[in-house]
């Protein structure tokens, strides 16, 4: 005899994983289009975002249907967490689109003569996203907890890039508009890291039923 409710839950997980892989790819493409000044790739990111948006709608719809069936405990947390993660993923997709837009504009203009730590920031944010999603897949609260402090690293890199860009704009007024594009792209990466942190927090809640947001205990082990 098939457990039909579990089938529904598995379906939801599956959909969420598909959405996550789309989102990851989008962020990757966006960062590449920016660093490699690839105009076509930047255009493709925009198109991919529609797929991600569609995923969010489907996941929410499925989650609502599952909620009418009164799931409890782990299943209840999974359904609610799935709705939150899908929202974070959708936002990440939006940020990727923003980066791609800036990449598209920047690719039409001469490069800015400045050494930025942006690739490191991008890989850091991407790593966080991957780690948070892996933690979700493997139901691994410890791995999820490990993601959270890395947000500070990204914030710091963002600050440095911000300062470097301001410095450059002061010295090269003709590069201001291009520098602003870079600034926005960096800000988007910083937001992506924030969303990855949210996902990690949700995974901890999923695994341990403990809400660690805004508590200041993010790195301590759970009670259970």
């Amino acid at each position, binding site marked *: *005899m*098939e*457990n*039909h*409710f579990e089938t529904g839950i598995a379906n939801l997980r599956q959909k969420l994983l598909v959405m996550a892989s789309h989102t990851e790819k989008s962020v990757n493409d966006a960062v590449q289009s920016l660093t490699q000044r690839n105009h076509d790739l930047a255009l493709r990111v925009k198109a991919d975002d529609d797929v991600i948006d569609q995923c969010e709608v489907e996941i929410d719809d499925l989650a*609502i*249907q599952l909620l*009418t*069936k*009164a799931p409890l405990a782990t299943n209840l947390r999974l359904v609610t967490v799935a709705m939150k993660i899908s929202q974070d993923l959708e936002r990440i997709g939006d940020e990727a689109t923003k980066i791609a837009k800036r990449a598209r504009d920047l690719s039409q203009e001469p490069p800015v003569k400045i050494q930025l730590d942006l690739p490191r920031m991008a890989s850091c944010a991407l790593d966080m996203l991957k780690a948070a999603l892996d933690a979700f897949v493997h139901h691994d609260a410890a791995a999820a907890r490990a993601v959270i402090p890395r947000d500070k690293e990204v914030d710091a890199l963002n600050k440095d890039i911000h300062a470097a860009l301001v410095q450059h704009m002061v010295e090269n007024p003709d590069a201001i508009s291009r520098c602003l594009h870079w600034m926005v792209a960096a800000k988007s990466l910083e937001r992506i890291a924030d969303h990855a942190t949210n996902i990690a927090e949700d995974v901890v809640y999923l695994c341990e039923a403990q809400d660690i947001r805004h508590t200041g205990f993010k790195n301590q082990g759970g009670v259970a």
Partner: protein
Amino acid sequence: MAETLIAPTAATNPANAAASLIEIENLSLYYGATKALKNISVKLEEKLVTAFIGPSGCGKSTLLRCLNRMNDLIDNVRIEGLMKIGGHDIYAADVDVIELRKRVGMVFQKSNPFPKSIYENVAYGLRLHGVKNKSDLDARIEQSLQQSALWDEVKDRLHSSALGLSGGQQQRLCIARAIAIKPEIILMDEPASALDPIATTRVEDLILDLKKEFTIVIVTHNMQQAARISDQTAFFYLGELIEFGATGKIFTNPAQKRTEDYVSGRFG
């Protein structure tokens, strides 16, 4: 045999070929002078699970029992309107009630296995309908116990009393007994209301498995259960059909205010 109710319309009347399996038109039912069902019209499709929900006394069980004419057993019941199964009016004068009940099986709220062995419980209906041969009986019994996911639990004690089974097993035995005679439709009157949550889950999963082969109409008080297992839901109130539609819609966005109030727990 199996075609007596279904074939005539499909074969002789192509216009009706796409008709619904169960068609209820303007059906009213009276207990003496009391009108218990008021002008119900609804069509139920084949191989779907349809849930009847509504507060106690809303007529959902009464309507369910019209479908296999179990209401015939009650004195003073009068029915107006049409109820067709497979295009055939089941209240027509020429209908053989025995044949109808073979087509339309029923599972009751309180599990009611006969005080006989597990084997004899399933064999009972088969014997009534002419299966006499021992090997045929054995095969059909094993098949229906498999289908009701009970076989592995009882195969070593087929000849011990059915009353020794747990409540959930008894109810699945009743389902096995009903499907053994291969009905087209299975009516279920709150089949899980007396069971614990685990047994309930098993019965619900079983219903979803059976959907592949049977058309199921289920009365339930548990709206989450209706949401879990049904494709379509009908909401009844004071003998009237208030709303009928896809289950997902009824429980997330009902069209009628009374449905909304009921499913969100504001009355009933």
